[in-house]
């Protein structure tokens, strides 16, 4: 299956991605329904990997099922739950299933999820995972030993444009690019100015920036995110806007749409995080196209 994501990014066409979570059970019908609903509006769909360290179906299988449905996945792969053998063998499995896009992540702390007594692996980190993917694309494993054939992954990495202190994170972004990241999917951004600064900062790296757009539902949700989700900060101005809105859910879509529209002139695409409200994704997408 030729990758829409690769083609559009190469052609400097604005890309839109969304995300789904694999199920907490063996029944994939709900996940496939969600993916089928989102597919007409987006270029690719991220498949999360035990997100927030909460146990779910492996994204390898979930992404493979999307491919079978003709939907392009971006398989998220974290270093938290797999050592270097498991990472590479899952990557070979992904290649066999026709999964093309990989988002290489370190992974959230295991202590924030539903298996807190578990052992976090972190044998590799995201930079080393990207290096491994690049090696595999060159027909080698991470030790330089030949594979029976080269893979053709399109690898991406995470970035946090609004994190402070940004300077501390900047060298790692260079390393991610050097290790083979071709796109950054960012943490939620709320400030166009900050996104512009970020894009300018990483411009020399020649990595496409796909900005994270978070669709909030209420001030309470924003406050929960600020309290409980690592690396995500909703600014107080947005929280206030949601608080004073007559219809906070609609206001959340408006906030997301405004940011999405701003992204058109700033970066290569957006990644919509609908926080369980997939039905609003078409509205945000429509805002961009208008």
């Amino acid at each position, binding site marked *: 299956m030729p990758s829409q994501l690769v083609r559009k990014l190469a052609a400097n066409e604005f890309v839109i991605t969304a995300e789904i979570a694999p199920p907490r059970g063996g029944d994939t019908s709900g996940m496939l329904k969600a993916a089928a609903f989102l597919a007409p509006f987006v270029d690719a769909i991220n498949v999360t990997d035990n997100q927030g360290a909460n146990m779910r179906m492996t994204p390898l299988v979930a992404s493979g099922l999307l491919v079978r449905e003709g939907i392009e996945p971006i398989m998220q792969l974290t270093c938290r739950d797999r050592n270097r053998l498991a990472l590479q063998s899952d990557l070979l499995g992904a290649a066999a299933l026709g999964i093309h896009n990989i988002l290489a992540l370190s*992974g959230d702390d295991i202590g924030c999820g539903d298996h807190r007594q578990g052992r976090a692996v972190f044998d590799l980190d995201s930079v080393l995972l990207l290096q491994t993917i690049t090696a595999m694309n060159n027909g080698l494993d991470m030790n330089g030993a030949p594979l029976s054939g080269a893979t053709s992954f399109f690898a991406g990495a995470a970035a946090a444009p609004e994190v402070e202190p940004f300077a501390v994170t900047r060298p790692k972004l260079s390393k991610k690019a050097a290790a083979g990241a071709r796109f950054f999917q960012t943490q939620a951004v709320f400030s166009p100015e900050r996104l512009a600064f970020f894009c300018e900062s990483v411009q020399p790296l020649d990595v496409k920036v796909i900005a994270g757009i978070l669709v909030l539902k209420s001030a309470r949700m924003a406050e929960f995110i600020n309290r409980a989700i*690592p690396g995500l900060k909703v600014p107080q101005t947005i929280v206030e806007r949601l608080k004073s809105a007559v219809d906070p859910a609609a206001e959340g879509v408006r906030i997301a749409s405004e940011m999405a529209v701003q992204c058109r002139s700033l970066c290569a695409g957006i990644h919509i995080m609908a926080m369980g409200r997939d039905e609003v994704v078409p509205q945000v997408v429509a805002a961009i196209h208008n």
Partner: protein
Amino acid sequence: MIVSTQKPLEQIMTALEGGKRVFIIGCAKCATVCKAGGEEEVFRMQDALTAAGKEVTGTIVIDETCHMLRTGRDLRSRREQVDEADFLLVLSCGAGIQSVAEASEKKVVAGTDSKFLGNIRRFGQFEQRCSLCGDCRLNDSGGVCPVTVCAKGLLNGPCGGMEDGACEVDQNSRCAWVTIYERLERQQRVERLDEITPARDFAHKRHPNSLVLEK
């Protein structure tokens, strides 16, 4: 030093079920400093066990319980009290507990949990700075260990959970990578962070490990 903490008394009592007589062993080194098994703690344990109906046949605080030959020798010096006991309750690190187990066929009860190799901040305050990874990377990271001080042990920079310089895992701790960055910046060698640090070699961490110095 090895930082250990005493197990809750109920757990120790459970481990001592089925026997009445107990010989208590402390350690004069690390376990004394972290108050898990020095003179004072051994004395208190004796009181607690007596109050709970046990008979303490004797106590000893060995100078470095991890020293296997010395532990064996010291226990032999108390042979009668040791022989009388059903259990040897050891208040030292796990290494010391096993020195005792090697020196005696008696049932050994661990009265502590060994936590980490600790730096001493001040009296009663210990911090983990080194994980004994066997493959020191401090030369690449400004003298701050990312393997240990970064909660995820990440070698190439902070994770996405760092916020305002704080660690994702413990908001009250500073992100190790912020400390590393700031140190290297002050030393005008922040460009070191542009080099990819290769994956760790966990062959150094295989256990049980041993070292025999050449004569």
